[in-house]
């Protein structure tokens, strides 16, 4: 036995020697540098930094801090605040806006932000017709923007647009000199993809695509005030549970894509502040009203009444059921609107009037693969349709494929789930994008068209008298509910988690996950 022990000693020694080179050291607390760096956890990568091309909330968040718009929006309900333009005036007919630029505003290469820069930026946006250009499509064109003097800009709208100031925070001003120097053959798109020509309070310090983007505060930002942040890191963490744990353990200060389960898990954790606020973010299932079995209004009504709304609400967690097409609480929303609820008898009644009185058909639903909430809603729909003896084939697809499938009614699936995030706190944003027939072929409103509703939307856009505008939107909502183009889903509450040492964060129900770092500081 003795000799066996000596052998064991040898083997143990060999293993220890081997293990040393993968040193297991107790968790050495990496002492944070004295700098104040805010770490934000998000699951959306930023493939493109061109302010007039990039899309997605993560791109908006970084661009918002690297570039400056004419005006900002802040608070609940969202208020327009001065930024590059210290003030602006609107002509009585609401068609002409004049902006006075802030004298102190300068780009990060030192050159001042002039009216020419504003015109150059708007012209480029309109020319490229990408990124956020859709917000001012048909409203601002090549000759809308004119330079009055170095510090004054005039914008003449092609059509009346009440909510125009609410759109401006997403239209950023670029430094014409830098972009012209690197114009290349595509209007500077390649260069701007990974370089910054802005006047924002932050510069892009480090970019590790797929992993993290580090912003560093400019030496002397032209805008006074703001928090004590010296930098911020936009960290890509794909799993929401990992985001939640990162905040829980202090490895991140903010987590942006949390699910309801994550929020429950964070409820009583020390040092964590949970933000669960209603937001103008609708979720509904678009029905293919032009092609296939759902063109039959009675079948659509039957399905709307058979749908298990309570199950959807349960699975969505922190959310509230939508009452009609518009988000609850937005101007013009009719809380007393009569909308379908789970009522099997009514559903059977409509079904009997439809072309397939006893079901027996198979419908298809697509959803973004990997998007958990949509997968759950699809299963709720599958379960609900069983009661009408209708089968559902669920197809997870990649987002680009889904968008491509909305190009024409025959390519579109029977059910098409859509998230609609309001970019500005005005009913027109949702109404125009989701129900106006000019948007057919796009994922926001693939097929639904009703001339009456189109007319109401355009009227609502132009009507400056608040009371009249109210009644227009009420009529619109009744008509849409009558057409039953969608199954109205839920208004998911915005779910954010912050470390308690983050200060100066004001919740804005508009794109609140596109975080503005300038006002923030760390204890």
């Amino acid at each position, binding site marked *: 036995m003795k000799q066996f022990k000596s052998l064991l000693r040898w*083997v143990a020694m060999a293993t220890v020697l081997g293990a040393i080179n993968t040193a297991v050291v107790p968790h050495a607390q990496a002492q944070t540098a004295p700098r104040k760096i805010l*770490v934000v956890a998000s699951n959306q990568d930023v493939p493109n930094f061109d302010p007039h091309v990039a899309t997605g909330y993560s791109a908006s968040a970084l661009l918002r801090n690297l570039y400056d718009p004419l005006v900002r929006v802040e608070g609940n309900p969202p208020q327009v605040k001065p930024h590059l333009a210290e003030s602006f005036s609107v002509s009585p007919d609401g068609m002409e806006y004049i902006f006075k630029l802030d004298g102190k505003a300068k780009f990060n290469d030192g050159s001042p932000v002039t009216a020419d820069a504003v015109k150059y930026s708007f012209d480029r946006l309109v020319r490229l017709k990408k990124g956020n250009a859709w917000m001012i499509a048909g409203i601002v064109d090549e000759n809308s923007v004119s330079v009055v003097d170095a510090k004054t800009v005039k914008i003449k709208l092609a059509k009346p647009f009440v909510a125009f100031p609410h759109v401006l925070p997403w239209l950023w001003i670029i430094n014409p000199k830098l972009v012209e120097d690197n114009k290349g053959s595509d209007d500077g798109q390649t260069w701007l993809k990974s370089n910054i020509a802005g006047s924002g309070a932050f510069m892009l310090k480090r970019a590790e695509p797929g992993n993290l983007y580090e912003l560093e505060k400019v030496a002397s930002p032209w805008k006074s005030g703001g928090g004590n942040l010296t930098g911020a890191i936009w960290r890509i963490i794909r799993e929401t549970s990992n985001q939640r744990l990162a905040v829980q353990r202090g490895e991140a200060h903010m987590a942006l894509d949390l699910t309801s389960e994550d929020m429950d898990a964070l409820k009583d954790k020390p040092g964590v502040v949970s933000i669960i606020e209603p937001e103008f973010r609708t979720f509904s299932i678009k029905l293919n009203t032009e092609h296939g079995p759902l063109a039959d209004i009675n079948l659509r009504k039957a399905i709307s009444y058979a749908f298990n709304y309570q199950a959807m609400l349960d699975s969505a967690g922190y959310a509230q059921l939508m009452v009609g097409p518009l988000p609850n609480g937005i101007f013009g929303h009719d809380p007393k609107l009569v909308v379908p609820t789970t009522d099997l008898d009514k559903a059977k009644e409509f079904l009997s009037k439809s072309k397939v009185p006893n079901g027996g058909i198979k419908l298809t639903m697509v959803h973004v693969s990997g998007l958990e909430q949509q997968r759950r809603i699809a299963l709720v729909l599958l379960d609900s349709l069983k009661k009408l003896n209708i089968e559902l084939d669920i197809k997870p697809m990649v987002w680009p494929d889904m968008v491509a499938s909305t190009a024409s009614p025959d390519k579109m699936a029977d059910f098409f789930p859509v998230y609609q995030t309001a970019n500005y706190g005005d009913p027109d944003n949702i109404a125009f994008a989701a129900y106006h027939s000019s948007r057919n072929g796009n994922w926001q409103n693939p097929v639904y068209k009703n001339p009456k509703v189109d007319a109401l939307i355009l009227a609502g856009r132009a009507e400056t008298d608040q009371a009249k505008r109210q009644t227009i939107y009420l009529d619109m909502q009744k008509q849409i509910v009558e057409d039953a183009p969608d199954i109205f889903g839920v208004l998911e509450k915005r779910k954010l988690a912050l470390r308690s040492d983050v200060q100066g964060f004001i919740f804005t129900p508009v794109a609140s996950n596109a975080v503005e770092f300038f006002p923030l500081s760390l204890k």
Partner: protein
Amino acid sequence: MIRFIIRRLVLLVPVFIGLTLLVFTISHILPGDPVKLAAGPQASAEEIASLTREFGMDRPLPQQYWHYASGLLQGDWGQSVLTRRPVAADLKIYLPATLELVFAAIILAIVIGIPAGLLSAITANRWPDYLIRILSLASIAMPRFFLALVLQLVFAMSLAWLPLNGRFPIIDLPPPTVTGMLTLDSLLAGDWLAFTTSCEHLLMPALAMSLSPLATITRMMRASTLDVLQQDFVLTERALGLSQSLIILKYVLRNAFSSTLTVIGLYIGWLLSGSVLVETVFDWPGIGLYATKAIVTQDFMPVMGVTLSIGFIFVLVNLAIDLLYGVINPKVRYQ
């Protein structure tokens, strides 16, 4: 010896060409049109056409292949259709991360597997042997991604001994990139703290990946050690009075190790291809995640880049293993 190496290197050329041809044909057979996807939904027909021309997708296949293969030689591994980033640049960032993970896994597998196999053979049919055999059978069956989750659950979430995910605490700046492998770079920079932190981040993912190779190396080592113990020279060495530990740890070990070596080469390939599973759980920005993102959006340039780089590495590693085999086994060297 040198002639032996040169001959093997020359033989690699047809293999590399074969690899590029195979990967190219596979990616072209697959349905799905990345250009249309990349052009985006609002893209007009002529914009898609211009993009197709830009990526040379309209030219006949052989020409496309020739363009691709010649590009490879000059380091141009094509461009991601979606992000317009050159694949070579991305690989330079993501490949070292995966290589660091794979080599750490293999080192762990060898450092633990060899002694375990040895011990299991020496104590054949006694409790250590049975324990090791059952553990190794179980660990071959253990799915890496499930083990990764459990490790994360235990060591990061409840015990908080080890960091949850990622390669380096993002507050601190990583050491200057030389090899792209954080552990090596921090050693080169002499930054001990960075070395320990990057080892901490590396430990759990490497452990999760190393379990299967570790189990197989243990089983192979046990089998070859038992064979070597039957050999006559072991009896002679005992008869001449050499101590059991000297015989086992010097004379038997080298013989048994030489036949386990070939398995290690095969496993590097297996680890490289399967790293995506562990990378997803630990958010380890390696070529696994990079390939998955490209696969999901059917952007096949990066997929071809990743597949080819793994294929090349696999072939080179196996060549290295053969040469190492020659070092250990003199008979082979003089053939």
